[in-house]
C-alpha cells in the first residue's frame, strides 16, 4: 500500500499568532514538507492546483519538477489536476516531461475543480464541467498512447497529425486517478479506462465515499479490467497527532475552529464524528485509518492532509515524523496482513520505478 500526503497549498494565517506566511515562504515550506515526506519513508507527495488566492500551487509541474530533482523515491502526484480548464495537450506535454525528469516517479489525479470563476478565466463554461472532464481526458489518454493523433471534439481546436512530445517515458504513460466527491459520471469514467478512483474523503461524511467506491468497483469489473476487489482505490484523510489525545485536540482546536473550509461551523468533536478527520494519538489514527477498509474494501493509496489551515512548518514536520515513525509502519503491516491474494498492493508503478524496487 502507498502512503503519502496531499496539500491544498493554502496561504492561511496561523490563528494562534495571527501571522500569514508570504507566498514565497509557503512555496518553500511546501518543498520542505515534500522532502520530509521522503525522509520519513512516505511514498507519495501530491499537490493541488489552484488559480486564485489564497492558494499558491498554480504551476504543479514546476513545483513537482523541483521536488523530483531533490528526491530519490517519492512518487510525485497531483490532487487534483484540472482536466476541465487545462488544455489536455499541455497536460500531456508537461507531465510526460516531468515523468522523464523524475525517472517515472509520476502519476496524477484528474479533477474538475470547485472554483466557479476558474472556468471563465480559462475560457470555459462551468455548466459543461462533466462533458469537459470526459472529452479532455479522452484526448489526453489518446495523446499518451498514439504517436500521431487526429482529433476533433467539442471544446478544443481540432488536431491533425499532432504528436505530443516528449513521448511518455519508455512508452508507458503516467498512471491516472480520477477524483470526485459525489459525481457518479467520474467513477464511471475511471472504471471505463481501468484507471484509479480517488475519494476525497476529507471534509465529507463517509457515506459519499462508500457509495462512489462501490459504484466504481462494480463498473471496473463490468468493463473487464478485473474483479471489483482488484480496482485501484485511493482515499484522502485528515489527521493531527500528539502523543496524548488531549494534547492533540487542544493544539489543533484553534486551527480547526478557524479553518477556511469548515471553520466557524460544527465543533471539532462533531466534525470528527461526521467526517474522517482524526485528531488524537498515533494509535487512534491507526485504528481510524484501518476502519476505512470496512467500507471501501482493500485499497491501494492513503493520502493525508497535514499542512493546511495555517499550521506552522515546524508542526507539520513533527506530524510527518510521527506519521513516518509510529503510524505508517503499523498501517503497512496491518493492511498487508488483511489484504487477500490477487488484490494489488499499490497503484501500478512505472516499469522504471518497479525495476528500481526489485534491485
Amino acid at each position, binding site marked *: 500500500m502507498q502512503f503519502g500526503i496531499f496539500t491544498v497549498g493554502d496561504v492561511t494565517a496561523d490563528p494562534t499568532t495571527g501571522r500569514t506566511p508570504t507566498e514565497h515562504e509557503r512555496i518553500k515550506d511546501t518543498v520542505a514538507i515534500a522532502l520530509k515526506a521522503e525522509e520519513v519513508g512516505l511514498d507519495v507527495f501530491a499537490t493541488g492546483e489552484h488559480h486564485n488566492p489564497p492558494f499558491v500551487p498554480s504551476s504543479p509541474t514546476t513545483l513537482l519538477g523541483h521536488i523530483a530533482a531533490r528526491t530519490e523515491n517519492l512518487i510525485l502526484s497531483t490532487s487534483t489536476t484540472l482536466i476541465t480548464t487545462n488544455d489536455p495537450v499541455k497536460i500531456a506535454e508537461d507531465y510526460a516531461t516531468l515523468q522523464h525528469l523524475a525517472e517515472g516517479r509520476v502519476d496524477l489525479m484528474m479533477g474538475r475543480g470547485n472554483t466557479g470563476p476558474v472556468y471563465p478565466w480559462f475560457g470555459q463554461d462551468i455548466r459543461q464541467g462533466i462533458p469537459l472532464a470526459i472529452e479532455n481526458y479522452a484526448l489526453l489518454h489518446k495523446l499518451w498512447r498514439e504517436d500521431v493523433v487526429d482529433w476533433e471534439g467539442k471544446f478544443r481546436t481540432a488536431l491533425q497529425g499532432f504528436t505530443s512530445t516528449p513521448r511518455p517515458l519508455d512508452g508507458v504513460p503516467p498512471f491516472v486517478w480520477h477524483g470526485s466527491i459525489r459525481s457518479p459520471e467520474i467513477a*464511471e469514467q475511471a472504471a471505463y479506462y481501468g484507471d484509479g478512483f480517488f475519494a476525497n474523503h476529507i471534509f465529507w461524511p463517509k457515506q459519499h465515499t462508500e457509495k462512489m467506491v462501490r459504484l466504481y468497483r462494480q463498473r471496473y469489473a463490468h468493463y473487464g479490467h478485473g474483479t471489483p476487489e482488484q480496482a485501484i482505490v485511493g482515499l484522502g484523510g485528515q489527521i493531527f497527532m500528539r502523543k496524548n489525545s488531549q494534547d492533540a485536540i487542544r493544539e489543533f482546536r484553534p486551527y480547526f475552529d478557524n479553518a477556511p473550509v469548515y471553520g466557524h461551523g460544527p465543533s471539532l468533536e462533531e466534525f470528527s464524528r461526521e467526517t474522517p478527520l482524526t485528531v488524537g494519538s498515533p494509535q487512534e489514527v491507526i485504528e481510524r485509518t484501518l476502519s476505512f477498509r470496512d467500507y471501501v474494501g482493500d485499497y491501494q493509496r492513503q493520502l493525508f492532509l497535514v499542512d493546511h489551515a495555517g499550521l506552522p512548518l515546524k508542526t507539520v514536520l513533527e506530524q510527518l515524523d510521527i506519521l513516518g515513525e509510529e503510524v505508517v509502519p503499523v498501517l503497512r503491516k496491518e493492511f498487508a496482513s488483511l489484504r487477500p491474494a490477487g488484490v494489488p498492493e499499490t497503484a501500478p508503478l512505472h516499469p522504471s520505478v518497479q525495476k528500481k524496487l526489485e534491485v
Partner: protein
Amino acid sequence: MQTLKLVAVSAGLGTPSSTRLLADRLLQAARHRLTEQEYAVDVEVVELRDLALDIAKNFVTGFPSAALQEAIDKVTGADGVIAVTPVFTASYSGLFKSFFDLIDPSALTGTPVLIGATGGTARHSLVLDHALRPLFAYLRALTLPTAVYAASEDWGTGGGEAAPTGFSGEGLPSRITRAGNEFADAVAALPSRRTEEDEIVPFEKQLADLRLD
C-alpha cells in the same frame, strides 16, 4: 393500496407556534380527505426550529448532519409537502428559505405543495404569492392554487363562512378545508415519482453524447 406520505414543514419558532398550528390543521384536513377516500396516509411534521443549528452548519461545511439529512429525505420523499412559514420582514423567514436552499433543486419537481404563512396582521397575506409561490415555482413543484394565510385575528374567529374582515369570503377553518381538499386530491391523482438509486449513464453513452466514440 399504497400508503401516501404527507410531510409538513413548519418554520415556526415559538412554542407553541401558530405556524405549527396552521401546518397541523392543513395536514389534518388533507389526511381527512384522503382517509375518506380510503387511502392509507402517513403524516409527519418537520420542525425547522429543531434543525436551526444543523442548517447553519450545513452552510459552513457543505454537508448535512444525520438529523438534517433525515429531514431532507422525508421532505423530498413525500408524496405531498405542506410548507408553512411565519412572515418576517416582508417575506418568508430566513430559516425557512435556508432549509429549502439545502434541498436539491430538482428534488421537489412535480411534487404537490400546499403553501401557508402566518403573521401578525392580514396586511402581509400576499407574501404567499410574491414570496412562497415563486420559490416553489423555481423548484418546479406543483404548487396548489389555494394557499392559506392566518393572521393573529383569524385564530379568534368562527369557522363558518363569515370572514373576519368581511371581504375574503371565508373564515380560516373553511379556507383550511378547501386548501386541504385541493392538496389531497392532487396527491391522490399523481402517481408516486420516487426513485431510490442514482442512474448510471454508461460511459459509452457519455462519450457518444460528445460524439467521441
